[in-house]
């Protein structure tokens, strides 16, 4: 990082003229701008008016000593961060310790060694410059993230409603149409359009939720007492229509009467994503199993497919948000790479853990657990 010394101002505070003169000469020669004060009170006034970048502060001064100046400066919000190098003629441990307690950045003895003093000043200035650079970059990054999240949010929000309407129309069309009344090609097109619409809706829904979760707008988990069996049945029922397009059957194995205190929307989203993935990676005509297993104080929900499975290499990339890993389904269905990330996040937020096992060519099983209430808590 290149530093231009002339962009930095050093305030020299000392009540001895000769000290100020020499320090000013030395620091000016190094290219810094200088300000001078001969007592603590004047120093505080200069700090208020000119906000120097660094202060060389003598400790023993009349009117107000260096320690008091530092103490008062730390109470001024926008001046508290200005680094102070204390100067003192005596290497009194007490003075040095007190200086550091008051937030001194460094300490130099008088009479100072020219090279040592300049090295310490340069070091502080390079820290200031680095801090400012980080600050600027953080602000730029913050703005970029806000812009990105806003864009995601607008896209997801504004597209979600029309896609939902199209999806509904498509479902009504397919449900109402007589198979033999149209050509096979036309029927295939309708099925494809319906699937694509459904995928698009899921993607937008995930995108919206992901954006909310990443921007901190989904911090509060709205917990309610939820009938787990109803939740699972509801999600499976909705997805059976989608599965049917690939001639896939979804079977529910096991049952429960347990109640879980969870955010129903989050857990539904997690389960829906897992079942959607299972359908996506299953072959035409196969079976997806959704199994409910009761454990003490928890319920485990397994979603098992007998499809393409995931290679070892890809398994390691599944939950890395920075890589947005995605792959095509058995019918070339596209994904966004968001679904599993959302599942993981939502399951965690509801006190559970997401697990998976997969073997390429055999299939995958994703499962998660959620805590359930015992009858005393209901």
């Amino acid at each position, binding site marked *: 990082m290149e530093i231009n010394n002339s962009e930095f101002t050093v305030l020299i505070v000392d*009540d*001895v*003229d*000769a*000290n100020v*003169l*020499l320090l000013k*000469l*030395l620091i000016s*020669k190094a290219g810094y701008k200088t300000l001078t004060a001969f007592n603590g009170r004047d120093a505080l006034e200069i700090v208020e008016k000119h906000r120097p970048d660094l202060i060389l502060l003598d400790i*023993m001064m009349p009117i107000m000593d260096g320690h008091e100046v530092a103490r008062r400066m730390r109470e001024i919000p926008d001046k508290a961060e200005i680094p102070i190098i204390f100067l*003192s*003629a*005596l290497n009194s441990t007490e003075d040095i310790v007190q200086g550091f307690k008051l937030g001194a950045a460094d300490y130099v003895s*008088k*009479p100072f060694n*020219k090279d040592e003093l300049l090295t310490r000043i340069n070091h502080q200035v390079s820290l200031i410059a680095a801090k400012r650079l980080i600050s600027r970059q953080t602000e730029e990054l913050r703005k970029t993230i806000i812009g990105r999240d806003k864009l995601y949010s607008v896209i997801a929000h504004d597209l979600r409603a029309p896609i939902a309407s199209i999806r509904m129309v498509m479902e009504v069309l397919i449900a109402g149409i007589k198979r033999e009344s149209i050509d096979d090609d036309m029927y295939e097109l309708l099925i494809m359009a319906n699937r694509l619409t459904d995928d698009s809706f899921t993607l937008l829904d995930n995108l919206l939720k992901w954006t909310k979760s990443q921007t901190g707008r989904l911090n509060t988990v709205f917990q309610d007492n939820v009938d787990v069996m109803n939740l699972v049945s509801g999600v499976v029922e909705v997805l059976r229509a989608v599965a049917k397009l690939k001639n896939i059957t979804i079977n529910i194995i096991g049952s429960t009467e347990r109640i879980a205190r969870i955010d129903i929307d989050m857990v539904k989203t997690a389960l829906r994503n897992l079942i959607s993935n299972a359908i996506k990676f299953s072959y035409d005509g196969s079976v997806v199993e959704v199994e409910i297993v009761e454990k003490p104080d928890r319920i485990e929900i397994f979603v098992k497919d007998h499809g393409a499975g995931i290679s070892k290499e890809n398994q390691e990339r599944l939950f890395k948000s920075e890589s947005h890993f995605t792959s095509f389904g058995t019918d070339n269905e596209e994904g966004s790479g968001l679904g599993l990330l959302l599942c993981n996040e939502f399951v965690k937020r509801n006190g559970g853990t997401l697990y998976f096992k997969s073997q390429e060519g055999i299939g995958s099983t994703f499962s998660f657990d959620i805590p359930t209430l015992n009858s005393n808590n209901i």
Partner: protein
Amino acid sequence: MEDYIDVEEMPVPDLTYLRSVTGDDKDAIKEVITIFIETAPEMLTSLKNSALAGNHEQLRAITHKFIPQLVYVGILSVITDVKIINSESKEMNDLMQRVEKIIKIVNNSIDYLKNII
């Protein structure tokens, strides 16, 4: 009294430090020496008065300020005495002797410094 220097044989001020810090800037050297010549007599008077009055706090403050200035103008032979007064004035039996020695050497150095600026 073997610790004490015969003032007739005391060393002349050594301006090496000042030349180094100022980068041999003649004006700056002159200015620092002038400041010393103007302020040192008052400091010496305060040093003596504080010693006579047994005002150790004041002695500590004066010597604290004096040390760097003595280094700047190269009056190095009294630094040890000034430091001892700074830290041990309460326990010293020879306080006044040390103060007198400092005064003599510094006054002698001032005369020398006056001649070179």
